[in-house]
C-alpha cells in the first residue's frame, strides 16, 4: 500500500505544475484578432520595463472565451488576471460586481483623451470598468472604380434609397460582381449586429419602454423586407452563411461593390498584401432614412480585471501600458502607423502621420461619433447598446432571432413568418426572465 501511495505521490508531483513564486505572473485571456496578436508580440517591451512581472497569454475563439471566462468569474476561479471583453459585457458584468474598477491607470494615462462614446460604453456610473484596446463602428466600404464606371457618386452620408439603387445598378452577376455584401450568418454578434443597427435607422427598436418586444412593428417589417429584397437582387449567392470574414474575403477578391461592416475592416481592405482592390476603396457613413439615426454600431474590445484576480495591481499596470498613447507610438515605430489599434483615442485622429497613411481615419471617427449607445434608437428604449441590448438574456434571444432572419434570407421561411417567430420567441424569453408578465 505504501508503495502505491508513494507512486501516486510521485506521479502527482510530476503532473502538477509548480509556478515560480518570485515574480507575478499575469494570465491574459484574449481573442485572435490581428491587433491582439501584435500586442502579444510586443509583450517583451512591457516585461522589460517591469522585470518583476511575467505574462502568459491564453488566446481562444470568441465564444469559447466568453464561456470560459464567464464560468471562471461566476465561480471566482481566479484563473485570469486580464480579460478581453466587449462593450456588451462591460455594463452587465460591472453591475454584477465581477469587474474591478480601473482607478489607478497612472498620471500620464490621460483618460480625457479616450473617445467620449467609447469611454461611455466601458463606464458604469462614471467609473471606468475596462480600458478600450480598439474601438469600431460600422460604415460603408465601396469600390470607387465600379461607382465611377456606373456614373455614381457616393455621398458622405448616403441614404438607404441611394445605397439600394446603387447596389442594383452595379451588380453584374455574370462578371461575378455583387452590388452589396452584408452579414447573413445567424448570431447575436453576426447578422443581428448588422440588422439591429439597420433597424435603428428605420426607426425600429427591440423593446418599448416597458420591455415589450417590437418585432410586430411596421418598422421591423420594413427593415427585414428591404434587407431580404436587396440581398436577393444584389447580394452574393449563399449570403445566409456569410459573416465578417466571409464578406472580407469576397470584398478583397473584388466581388463586392459595397460592404457595410466594422470600421476595423478598413485597414484590411486597403492592405495590398491581402486585398486585390486595395487602391480602389472609398468610405462613407452607414446609410440612414432621414430619421436621425444611421445604421452603424459601436463596439470596443477592451481590457478588464476580473474581481477574482489576486494580482490586480500588476494587471492594471499591464492594461495601462497596452491602452496608452505610448503603446500606439510603439506599434507605429515597429509596424507602421497603419497598424496601430484604432478607435480609442482622440489624439490618434489628430496625428498627421496617422491621417496620412489611413484614408479611413476620418470616416471611422465620424462613424464612432455618430453612434450613441445611450440613445440608440429613434423612439425611446429601456436598454443601453446600439446593436444589442445590454441585458444578460440578449445573447440567447439575439441568436434565436438571428436564426429566423437568416432563414428568411436563405428563403426557407418568409419575412412575415420570421418576424412573428422572432416576436413569440422574444416574448417567451422575456416573460421567463421576468421583464414582462
Amino acid at each position: 500500500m505504501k508503495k502505491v501511495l508513494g507512486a501516486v505521490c510521485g506521479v502527482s508531483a510530476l503532473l502538477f505544475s509548480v509556478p515560480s513564486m518570485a515574480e507575478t505572473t499575469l494570465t491574459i485571456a484574449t481573442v485572435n484578432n490581428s491587433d491582439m496578436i501584435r500586442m502579444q508580440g510586443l509583450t517583451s517591451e512591457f516585461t522589460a520595463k517591469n522585470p518583476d512581472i511575467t505574462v502568459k497569454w491564453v488566446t481562444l475563439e470568441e465564444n469559447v472565451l466568453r464561456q470560459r471566462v464567464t464560468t471562471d468569474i461566476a465561480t471566482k476561479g481566479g484563473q485570469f488576471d486580464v480579460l478581453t471583453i466587449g462593450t456588451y459585457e462591460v455594463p452587465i458584468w460591472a453591475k454584477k460586481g465581477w469587474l474591478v474598477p480601473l482607478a489607478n491607470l497612472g498620471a500620464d494615462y490621460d483618460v480625457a483623451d479616450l473617445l467620449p462614446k467609447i469611454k461611455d460604453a466601458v463606464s458604469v456610473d462614471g467609473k471606468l470598468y475596462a480600458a478600450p484596446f480598439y474601438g469600431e463602428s460600422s460604415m460603408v466600404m465601396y469600390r470607387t472604380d465600379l461607382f465611377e464606371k456606373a456614373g455614381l457618386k457616393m455621398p458622405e452620408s448616403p441614404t438607404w434609397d441611394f445605397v439600394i439603387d446603387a447596389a442594383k445598378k452595379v451588380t453584374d452577376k455574370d462578371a461575378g460582381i455583387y452590388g452589396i455584401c452584408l452579414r447573413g450568418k445567424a448570431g447575436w454578434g453576426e447578422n443581428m449586429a448588422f440588422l439591429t443597427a439597420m433597424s435603428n435607422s428605420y426607426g425600429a427598436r427591440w423593446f418599448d419602454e416597458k420591455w415589450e418586444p417590437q418585432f410586430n412593428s411596421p418598422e421591423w417589417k420594413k427593415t427585414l423586407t428591404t434587407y431580404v429584397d436587396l440581398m436577393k437582387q444584389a447580394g452574393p449567392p449563399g449570403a445566409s452563411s456569410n459573416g465578417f470574414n466571409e464578406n472580407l474575403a469576397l470584398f478583397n477578391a473584388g466581388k463586392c461593390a459595397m460592404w457595410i461592416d466594422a470600421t476595423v475592416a478598413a485597414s484590411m481592405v486597403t492592405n495590398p498584401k491581402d486585398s486585390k482592390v486595395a487602391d480602389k476603396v472609398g468610405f462613407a457613413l452607414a446609410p440612414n432614412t432621414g430619421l436621425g439615426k444611421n445604421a452603424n454600431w459601436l463596439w470596443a474590445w477592451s481590457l478588464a480585471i476580473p474581481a477574482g484576480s489576486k494580482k490586480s495591481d500588476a494587471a492594471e499596470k499591464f492594461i495601462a501600458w497596452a491602452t496608452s498613447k505610448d503603446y500606439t507610438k510603439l506599434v507605429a515605430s515597429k509596424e507602421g502607423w497603419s497598424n496601430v489599434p484604432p478607435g480609442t483615442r482622440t489624439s490618434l485622429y489628430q496625428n498627421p502621420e496617422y491621417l496620412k497613411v489611413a484614408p479611413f481615419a476620418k470616416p471611422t471617427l465620424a462613424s464612432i461619433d455618430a453612434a450613441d449607445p445611450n440613445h440608440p434608437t429613434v423612439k425611446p428604449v429601456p436598454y443601453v447598446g446600439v446593436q444589442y441590448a445590454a441585458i444578460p438574456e440578449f445573447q440567447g434571444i439575439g441568436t434565436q432571432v438571428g436564426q429566423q432572419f437568416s432563414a428568411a434570407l436563405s428563403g426557407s421561411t418568409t419575412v412575415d413568418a420570421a418576424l412573428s417567430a422572432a416576436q413569440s420567441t422574444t416574448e417567451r424569453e422575456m416573460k421567463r426572465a421576468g421583464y414582462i408578465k
Partner: protein
Amino acid sequence: MARMATTRRVAVSTAGAWLAGFLIFFPILWMILASFKTELEAFAIPPSFLFFHWTLENYATVQERSDYLHHALNSIIIAGGSTLIALLIAVPAAWSMAFSPTKRTKDILLWMLSTKMMPPVGVLVPIYLIFKTVGLLDSRIGLVFILCLGNLPIVIWMLFTYFKEIPRDILEAARMDGATIGRELVYVLTPMAIPGLASTLLLNLILAWNEAFWTLNLSTSEAAPLTVFIASYSSPEGLFWAKLSAASTLAIAPILVLGWFSQKQLVRGLTFGAVK
C-alpha cells in the same frame, strides 16, 4: 463468363471502397491542402484544388506564435495518462462482470452507460468549483482524472464484450492448475484479449486526444493541450482558415500516424467476436 463477372464485381467493389474511403478522408485532405494556401486562396470561390500558390507561411506563423511542443506534450500526458488509468480500473471491473456476474451486473452496466447521457455542460459549474477548491484547475492531473472518469464507462463496456467472448472453460482449466486470480488475469486472460485491449486502448486514446469540452474549460495555459492550441487560431475579425488548418494539421498529425501503424490491430479488435 463467370470469371469475368467476378472480376467486374471485384473491380466495382474496389472502386466503391476507394470512393467511400476518399469521401470520408476528404475533409482532412481539404484541411491539409488549405494549410498550404494563403489566407485569400483558402477562402477563394470557386476553390482551387491543387493549382494554387503553395506556401509554408502558415506553419511558420503557427510555429512562431505558439509553443506547439508544450501543447503536444500536454496532449500526450493527458490522453495517455487517462487511458492507462482507465484500463487499470476497467480490466478487473470487466473481468468480474464477465466471469462472475451477479443479479445486478446488468443494472450496473446500464447505470454506468447512463452517466454518458448527460451533456457535460450540465455539470460544468459543480466540477469547476470542485477543481477550484482542491486546486486542480489548469493542472494535468485534473484533466487526466476527468477524462479518465468520462471514458471509463465506454472502456468497461468494450472490455466486457471482449471478455464475454472468451470461453470460461479456459479460465477454469487455469484455476484447476492452481492459478491465482492475479495469474489468471495476467497470463491467461490478457494474452487472449490483446486485440480487444489494443483497440480499446487506441479508441480511448483517440477520444481523450480529441476531447475538447473539459480540456478547453478546465485548462488555462500550463496544462493546455492541443485542443486549446487549435481554438486559439479562430478569429472573429480577420481571415484565419489557412492558419487554423495548419494548426489543426499539426494537432492531428501524431494521432494520424499512430492510427496508421496500428490500423491492423484496430480493425481486428473492432471486429473481434463479430463471427463466432
